[in-house]
């Protein structure tokens, strides 16, 4: 009987915990979602400064946004910039991180340090320094210089997940197993290492894509109007019409979200793989 009461008390204690969890999760979601939700609502509100909820709803700001000159070209530029950055990051980072893991473990601390640098250097300083150093054709103030800059800037976002994934799969032994079966390093990378760190590569790609898609400072200072991207247009409109700017934001979210889904879809349906097998362990 005593035991029963005790277990009852314990289960009652357990019952309490989810309520606290729910509270904090709710608080977190509120904090995270409120700005996004209000942006969404603001983009369809006719007037929203005297009441709690908007006085009326309209889609006219979307029509104005879509009709804006530069709408398509900035969108295209942003997509080009983001995708090119993801591609260059993948080509540079994945083999490098793999190589450091396998053969140059002593270089790991140095790489770790390099990966913190982009956070340490103010973007403005980075941009101005790059503009001054690469002041010759064809790099000077070109989209190529911009891609190079954002690759550096977004490098930690690719490095971290890829490095963690490599650590999780014991890439060392898997590589040696591949070698003992007669495979060369390219075959091992393509058939063994990359498929097994795909979750890391995908999350790195998503992080880089969304970071670069919303990048403003580097773009504005390095290329400015020569290669106008979506965030530049958006900022322009905040000075002209807040509602249209909100509509631009919503469009930007949606595109980033869609592309993210696409990257995930391409990455996970390319081959018949077991999701269990891809789980990091």
């Amino acid at each position, binding site marked *: 009987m005593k035991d029963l009461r005790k277990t009852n008390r314990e289960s009652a204690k357990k019952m309490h915990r989810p309520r606290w969890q729910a509270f904090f999760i709710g608080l977190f979601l509120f904090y995270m979602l409120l700005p996004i939700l209000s942006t969404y609502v603001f983009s369809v509100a006719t007037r929203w400064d005297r009441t709690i909820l908007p006085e009326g709803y309209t889609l006219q700001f979307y029509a104005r946004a879509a009709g804006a000159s530069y709408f398509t070209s900035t969108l295209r530029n942003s997509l080009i910039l983001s995708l090119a950055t993801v591609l260059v990051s993948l080509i540079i980072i994945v083999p490098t991180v793999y190589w450091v893991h396998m053969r140059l473990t002593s270089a790991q601390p140095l790489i770790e340090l390099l990966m913190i640098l982009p956070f340490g250097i103010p973007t403005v300083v980075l941009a101005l320094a790059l503009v001054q150093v690469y002041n010759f054709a064809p790099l000077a103030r070109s989209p190529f210089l911009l891609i190079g800059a954002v690759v550096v800037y977004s490098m930690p976002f690719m490095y971290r997940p890829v490095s963690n994934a490599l650590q999780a799969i014991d890439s060392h032994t898997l590589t*040696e*197993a*591949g*070698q003992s*079966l*007669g495979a060369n390093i390219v075959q091992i990378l393509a058939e063994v290492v990359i498929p097994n760190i795909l979750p890391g590569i995908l999350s790195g790609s998503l992080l880089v894509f969304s970071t670069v898609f919303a990048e403003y400072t580097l773009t504005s200072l390095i290329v400015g109007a020569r290669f106008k991207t979506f965030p530049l247009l958006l900022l322009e409109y905040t000075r002209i019409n807040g509602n249209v700017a909100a509509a631009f934001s919503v469009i930007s979210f949606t595109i980033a979200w869609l592309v993210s889904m696409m990257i995930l879809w391409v990455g996970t349906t390319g081959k018949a793989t*077991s999701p*269990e*097998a891809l789980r990091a362990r």
Partner: protein
Amino acid sequence: MTYLELKNVSKAFAGVDVVHDFSLDIEKGTLVSFLGPSGCGKTTTLRMIAGFEQLDDGSIQLDGNDITGVPPNRRDIGMVFQAYALFPNKTVRDNISFGLRMKKTPKNEIRKKVDTVLEMVRLQETADRYPHQLSGGQQQRIALARALAVQPRVLLLDEPLSALDAGVRVALRGEIRRIQSELAITTVYVTHDQEEALSISDKVVVMNKGIIQQVGTPEEIYRAPQTRFVATFIGTANQFLGTASGRDSVVCKNIKLLAEGVENFRDGEEVVALVRPENIHVQSELPQQRNDWNAIPGVVETITFHGAVTRLGVNTGGQRIVADVTVANTKPVALNQKIWLLFPMSACQVMAAKE
């Protein structure tokens, strides 16, 4: 006929000798174990044979060809790892066919070969599963099948059973030996488990601190150890430190023992006499002494039941001796009982006191 030959192989990591002047001939079709405590250089030697570590000095020859500088993927040497190292993204069938595909084997032949090796390890039903859906023992059998599918010239096993449960370990080592004999594949097996090494090997190489201590058949290693390290690392041995005296005796602190091999030492030289617990007979009274037997009186201090044998810890005037008795051939012994320990001169081996 020598098939795999290591000549004066040396390797150091950060200035510390890990393998020192290692020379060994391995005959075709035999299973040779490298046995030693961790850090003795056995795995490093294996990895040098596989090509994963570069030699600092010496050379490795396989079937008459120098393979010292050949990269691992062109050595035609298969390897089974302690951590299985199956490719997690591939099914069992794809894991096994990987090596065959690298060799550009025709598709229908791959299928046949995969089925053959799966049958060999008795896991045909797992062909379409992923590694994480198999038990540890099954994964290691698949890893063995994968290594064998390409018909390598040499098979290397790096502590393949260390990560498995005791029961699975014993069953699988029998399996490994059976398959190895069936295929007559030259095999090098690294382990720190003496029982494992003794039970499956044609030859055992006992290593310590990067140096070969002894090479021999399991019987030779156990019955006629050549160094004190081998005698104490393999099985259990009672050690009597003393000095050589005459042709057949060792003078210890408070006893004089008759021993074999004393003639190899100078009078007064420091030696150690070794006696295995199972060679010691226990009697409650001093029997008629034979002149080539040692008899030491003592008091039973501990009795430990080990199943087939019972191990007695006996105090003999300061030195503790362990003796194994079987229920079948000994009268029951009680704690604190005074007994006599008897062992023939032939069971008492003398070797240099220095390891």
